[in-house]
């Protein structure tokens, strides 16, 4: 791990100045720690992510944080790297920020580490970096440290990004499935399915093409509004991999409680239903990058809804069910048809199917 510029900036090495051009690709030497490494961090990464507050980066960064903070890390791999509505860079910033936000913390600082495959186009890296910068600006966070490694060709999927985030604790109560009680309301912040569908539909081979935008979004403003509920806000989690099916199960799987979810009240992203029909996918299991589930005291369900709806991106929030104890540890879906079934954790791979 090193700061973005590292010690080499101190001027021991003199390298010939030439600009990286858009035709260039990443070479193994870009990760060797030598001249090309420095060139990459200095001319590309640092140029794109310049951070005025911490001009003298070294092996580590000193942060000034008061009180309790939240700390999280996540690694991002995705195919394709660029998709309608976003790219791996935006995902890597917002994803980690969202993990802090649903934990009751205001995102402040992020680290940013790349593992890049040899041969990766510099032009694509530039696109990713400028997307990272835009996302970081929107989120109002600072990227304070980073790292770049290069792996030999055919040993990695183009580029992987790891971000680690620190945020100051703003919500004073515990956010935990163990605080959920019978009678609580289950709230969703927005329509589901857009991210997973956008990714799947933008894989070239499918007949539907890129018609849906990923919902990848910064969730802190929505979460912050819910913090006002105080101890009546009990649980929050963003519904990423495994979709809402996974999150709802995680919330109560270790309890003696069950969730009763009303399928007809779950908002679906635009075109998500049609593409799910065509490809044989289940929207409840599809990944989202801009949706979270909250569980609040039953009497505060409507209040939670209005707090979400008055915030940008929350206009389609819904109460989708309530907590009871009829089927301990299980999520029960009351289907649109009026039938009932268990909504389980997603199982197996999600692939387009003919059957």
């Amino acid at each position, binding site marked *: 791990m090193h700061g973005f510029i590292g010690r080499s900036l101190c001027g021991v090495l003199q390298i010939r100045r030439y600009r990286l051009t858009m035709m260039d690709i990443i070479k193994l030497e870009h990760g060797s720690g030598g001249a090309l490494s420095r060139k990459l961090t200095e001319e590309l990464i640092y140029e794109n992510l310049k951070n005025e507050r911490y001009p003298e980066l070294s092996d580590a960064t000193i942060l000034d944080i008061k009180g309790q903070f939240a700390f999280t890390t996540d690694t991002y791999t995705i195919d394709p790297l660029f998709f309608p509505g976003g790219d791996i860079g935006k995902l890597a910033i917002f994803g980690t920020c969202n993990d802090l936000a649903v934990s009751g913390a205001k995102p402040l600082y992020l680290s940013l580490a790349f593992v890049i495959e040899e041969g990766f186009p510099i032009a694509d890296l530039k696109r990713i970096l400028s997307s990272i910068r835009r996302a970081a600006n929107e989120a109002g966070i600072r990227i304070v440290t980073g790292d770049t490694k290069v792996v030999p060709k055919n040993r990695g999927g183009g580029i992987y990004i790891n971000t680690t985030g620190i945020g100051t604790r703003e919500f004073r109560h515990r956010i935990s499935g163990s605080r959920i009680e019978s009678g609580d309301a289950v709230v969703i912040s927005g329509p589901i399915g857009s991210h997973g569908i956008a990714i799947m539909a933008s894989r070239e081979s499918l*007949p*539907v*093409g890129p018609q849906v935008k990923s919902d990848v979004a910064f969730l802190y403003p929505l979460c912050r509004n819910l913090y006002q509920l105080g101890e009546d806000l009990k649980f929050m989690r963003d519904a990423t991999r495994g979709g809402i099916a996974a999150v709802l199960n995680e919330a109560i799987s270790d309890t003696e409680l069950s969730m009763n979810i009303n399928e007809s009240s779950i908002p679906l992203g635009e*075109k998500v239903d*049609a593409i799910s029909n*065509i490809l044989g996918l289940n929207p409840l299991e599809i990944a989202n990058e801009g949706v979270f589930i909250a569980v609040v005291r039953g009497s505060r369900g409507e209040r939670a809804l209005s707090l979400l709806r008055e915030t940008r991106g929350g206009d389609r929030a819904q109460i989708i069910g309530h907590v009871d104890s009829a089927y301990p540890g299980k999520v029960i879906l009351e289907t649109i048809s009026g039938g009932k079934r268990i909504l389980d954790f997603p199982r197996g791979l999600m692939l387009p*199917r*003919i*059957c």
Partner: protein
Amino acid sequence: MCLATPMEIKEILEGGKAIVQQAGVEARVDISLLESPQVGDYVIVHAGFAIEKLDMKEAEERLKLFSKLAEVKENLD
């Protein structure tokens, strides 16, 4: 064994292909298994192929029957 969904033909292309749509989502499918497909036909799509046209008269009658059923007791035969 055979997941399929209804879609509407928007445009007929060369080589037995067509652009079809459902709820604003467009897809490119093969229509060579259909007898004289036309723009505006509703078709059933399975694995990227339209396998049959929907019979709109039957569909209409069925929907009428169902809406009656929802109101009063109705014989279903």
